[in-house]
């Protein structure tokens, strides 16, 4: 495993281009585009203000940089550095900006969710979509980029509009039986739309592309409901994480629940492997221990750690949620299916240090990773069943069915990995800290062979 040198970064804005050739990173008001392999600067653009959001177009030709404070969006072309485009939302303000899947339109959401403006880079045309709903996940594009589902709120009722992205024509418009729609997401095959209610009510509705209601699912009532939703890449399963600390898996035929994954704090099953991150008691650590006054300062920046297989029964650290506050830290808040559908990684928010990995084939818990500090984010390798985890420490953790490893990010100073993102082909990860980033290259050959065997096994 190799690491690149450390580059500057701001706002955790570092994106691989969809074609995997370039890496865009933002430093204050500058946008830097590098070659992924050489890490040489390919282009450097200067925006009008500090960039708050950056996004590659789907064809990797353009990058949009949003400056929400100023209500500005600047678009840069990779092929023509002199080409520029500036969109000013003026007094309407700007809270969100994104590309349409064709890479020729930009959707800007104005303040107060008054409307969504669709700016075309091809024509002068500007379209407006009224009444967008201000919610967690109000826009969803199908994976093939043909359709967009948009949550709307009209006359105190939730509606969903399905647009054809090519000409922004409204294809379907239907109201949903939700109290307060919180999000919607297309299945990867683009034929089923999952729509779920806000946390006050456990309700998920499944609509066909043509607006027919396929199914409604409600696990329980009178309690906080859905916290996260994720489709399996094959569209076969819909995982629903809820505030009761469970993940429910629905199937795509009957839309009934297949199984329930409970996130128990004590694990007493010899079939489950629990990896516990432990500080390596190295020479350094011993020296550290001998200075108790240093201990009080905080975490040692470069204390190495390793994984130990915990013996059963294992009890995980539980965070007691504050019951009288909104958005309590309970329930399954993050979920991700592996790219090959075999595994599901989840995080229960009141067990912040642990990542559960479930075997989807056998529909049971497979592995639990318990970190020393709360898990910030995790992401699956787009190519293999390999999970990268970061916890805000100077380490990156990798899990695969073969085992897991904790890797110290080298370099002077503390590199606190707050976020990470995989390269398209899974041979490098961008590790992002508060104001730096670096690339972590994984030895592809050796890893590939081992994973190839494991792939067979799975």
């Amino acid at each position, binding site marked *: 495993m190799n690491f690149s040198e450390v580059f500057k970064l701001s706002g955790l804005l570092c994106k691989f281009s969809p074609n995997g050739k370039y890496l865009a990173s933002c430093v204050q008001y500058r946008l830097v585009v590098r070659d992924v392999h050489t890490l040489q600067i390919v282009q450097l653009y200067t925006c009008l203000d500090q960039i708050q959001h950056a996004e590659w177009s*789907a*064809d990797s030709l353009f990058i949009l940089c949003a400056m929400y404070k100023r209500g500005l969006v600047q678009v840069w*072309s990779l092929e023509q550095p*002199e*080409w*520029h*485009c*500036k*969109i*000013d*939302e*003026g*007094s*309407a303000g700007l809270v969100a900006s994104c590309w349409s899947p*064709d*890479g*020729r339109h930009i959707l800007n959401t104005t303040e*107060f969710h*008054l*409307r969504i403006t669709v*700016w*075309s*880079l*091809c*024509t*002068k*045309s*500007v379209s407006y979509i*009224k009444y967008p709903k201000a919610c967690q996940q109000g826009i969803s594009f199908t994976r093939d980029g*043909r*359709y967009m589902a948009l949550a709307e*709120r009209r006359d*105190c009722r939730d509606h969903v509009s399905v647009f*054809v992205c090519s*000409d922004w*024509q409204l*294809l379907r418009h239907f109201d949903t039986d939700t*109290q307060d729609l919180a999000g919607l997401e297309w299945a990867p*095959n*683009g*034929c089923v739309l999952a729509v779920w209610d806000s946390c006050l009510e456990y309700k998920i509705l499944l609509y*066909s*592309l*043509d607006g027919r209601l396929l199914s409604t699912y409600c696990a329980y009532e009178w309690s906080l409901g859905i916290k996260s939703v994720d489709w399996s890449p094959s569209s076969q399963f819909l995982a629903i994480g809820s505030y009761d600390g469970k993940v429910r898996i629905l199937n795509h035929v009957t839309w009934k629940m297949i199984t329930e994954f409970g996130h128990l704090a004590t694990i007493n099953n010899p079939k489950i492997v629990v990896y516990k991150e432990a500080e390596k008691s190295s020479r350094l650590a011993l020296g550290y221990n001998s200075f108790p006054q240093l201990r009080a300062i905080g975490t040692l920046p470069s204390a190495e750690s390793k994984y130990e297989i915990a013996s059963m029964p294992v009890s995980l650290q539980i965070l007691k949620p504050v019951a009288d506050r909104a958005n309590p830290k309970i329930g399954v808040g993050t979920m991700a299916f592996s790219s090959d559908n075999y595994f599901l990684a989840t995080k229960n928010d009141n067990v912040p240090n642990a990542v559960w990995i479930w075997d989807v084939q056998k529909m049971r818990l497979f592995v639990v990773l318990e970190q020393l500090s709360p898990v910030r984010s995790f992401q699956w390798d787009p190519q293999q069943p390999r999970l990268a985890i970061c916890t805000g420490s100077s380490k990156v953790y990798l899990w695969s069915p073969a085992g897991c490893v904790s890797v110290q990010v080298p370099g002077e100073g503390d590199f606190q990995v707050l976020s990470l993102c995989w390269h398209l082909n899974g041979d490098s990860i961008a590790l992002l800290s508060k104001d730096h980033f670096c690339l972590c290259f994984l030895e592809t050959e050796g890893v590939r062979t081992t994973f190839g065997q494991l792939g067979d096994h799975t």
Partner: protein
Amino acid sequence: MGDWMTVTDPALSSESKITSQYTSETKMSPSSLYSQQVLCSSIPLSKNVHSFFSAFCTEENIEQSISYLDQELTTFGFPSLYEDSKGKETKRGLNVVAVLNCMNELLILQRKNLLAQENVETQNLKLGSDMGHLQNCYAKLKEQLETSRREMSGLQERDRQLQCKNRNLHQLLKNEKDEVQKLQNIIASRATQYNHDMKRKEREYNKLKERLHQLVMNKKDKKIAMEILNYVGRADGKRGSWRTDKTEARNEDEMYTILLSDYEYRQKQILMENAELKKVLQQMKKEMISLLSPQKQRPRERTDDNTGTALSDVEEDAGEMNRESIWDLSCETVREQLTNSIRKQWRILKSHVEKLDNQVSKVHLEGVNDEDVISRQDHEQETEKLEVEIQQCKEMIKTQQQLLQQLATACDDDTSSLLRDCYLLEEKERLKEEWSLLKEQKKNFEKERRSFIEAAIRLGLERKAFEEERAIWLKQQFLSMTNFDLQNSENVKLFSAFSGSSDRDNHTVHSRPRARKPHSVANGSPNCTSKLTKSLPASPSTSDFCQTRSCVSEHSSSINILNITPEETKPNQVGRECTNLKWSVASRPASQEGCYNGRSLTYANSHIHKDNLP
């Protein structure tokens, strides 16, 4: 009767106790009196009777009393006291025999009555005690009844209380339910209110939004604009098309095609799955058939009525097998056929397995009954037994090992002392043996000594005789010889030679025991001391003794054997000293001195030393 009463009165008055009784009774018939007498059991009868009778009959009223008695007796059915008066109204004489008989009978009666009375009394007593017992029982039962009544009342009280409580709890439950209902109502109302409020707020918000929208958007905000260098081409290279109904229709079409393709894809998948499942079913069926066909033969042979169906089954199966290709078509009839045949096969298999199970159980039962075959239970028991034995043996070995270890280390003082005692005892025994041996040797030595002494005496005597002879001879020579000088010189020579030889003889004779004695001492005492100090059995000592005793001439070799020194051809003296030096490490100085000093002494000395040893 009235007369009799007056007469009897004074007599009765004397008996103050029974007066009233008898006064009242005399009024009654004599029978009642009799019975009365029987009844009043408490009165000491004999005396009373006597006094009564004495008072009853006096000199004056003999006749009267006789007649009265007669009357009385006759009324009681006794024979008359009077003689049968054949004559007229003459005075009837008293028939003494009859009187006596009557008396006797009366006495017998009396006795009987007394007995009866006693019986009655005992019965009475018995009854009294029974009565007492029953009364006790009654009291007890009454008490029990009382307590149980009290208990019952207590229980009733408790029951009442519990019921009360229950009622209260029910009430509470009801209240709680009401509360819950109320709260739920409140929640619901709150929810509706909240929703209502939310809606109102949302409406307001929408209004505001609308207003804002108007304000912001309708101002023709110049700022809202896009500055672009030049428009870029579409990703697909096509030009944008106008929105028309046509495009709408096209979009719809596209959507439906997408949906259709998705459904088709799914259908294909399902079909594939189905096909695979069918394949599995088919395979299963085939296997079942192949599995069952040999078994089917037998029952067919046994039972004729089954043959028809079985045969038809087989035929059917064969026919189906030929129609395998049909299965690719998912037709309901085919499916039904397949499932039916599978079910049939399955049933057959099931029954067969059950049969096999039954057979197995039967065989098992038979096996149990059969004596030749060792049943599994026996096997298991045997193996268990053997295992237990192995375990025991292992334990034993372990304990033995432990004991051995303990012995080897001699960690405990007790055990070591015990052991030492054992060893000492052994040594004692051995020493005793040696002692007896030595005693024997001593005797032998003494015998030898005596013989030596005798020999010496004899020699002395002989010598004397010889010298006398010589003197005589010399005298004769001296007297008779003419050639004195020549002869003398020869004689001298001869003499010297003779005397020398005799001397030498003497020497050797003397040196023998001498040489032997210290040697034996040197060999013996160090051995003993070594035994003491080393506390080890010195078995070679006795044999050495024998050796030293028997083969005196082989001193040096024996010593060498003892000492295991390389120098073999050393003279006796040196070898001995060598041994002494060697032994001196272990031996006591006294004994050593004894050895050295006692070289000239007799071996008795060494024995004295040895005597002290045990």
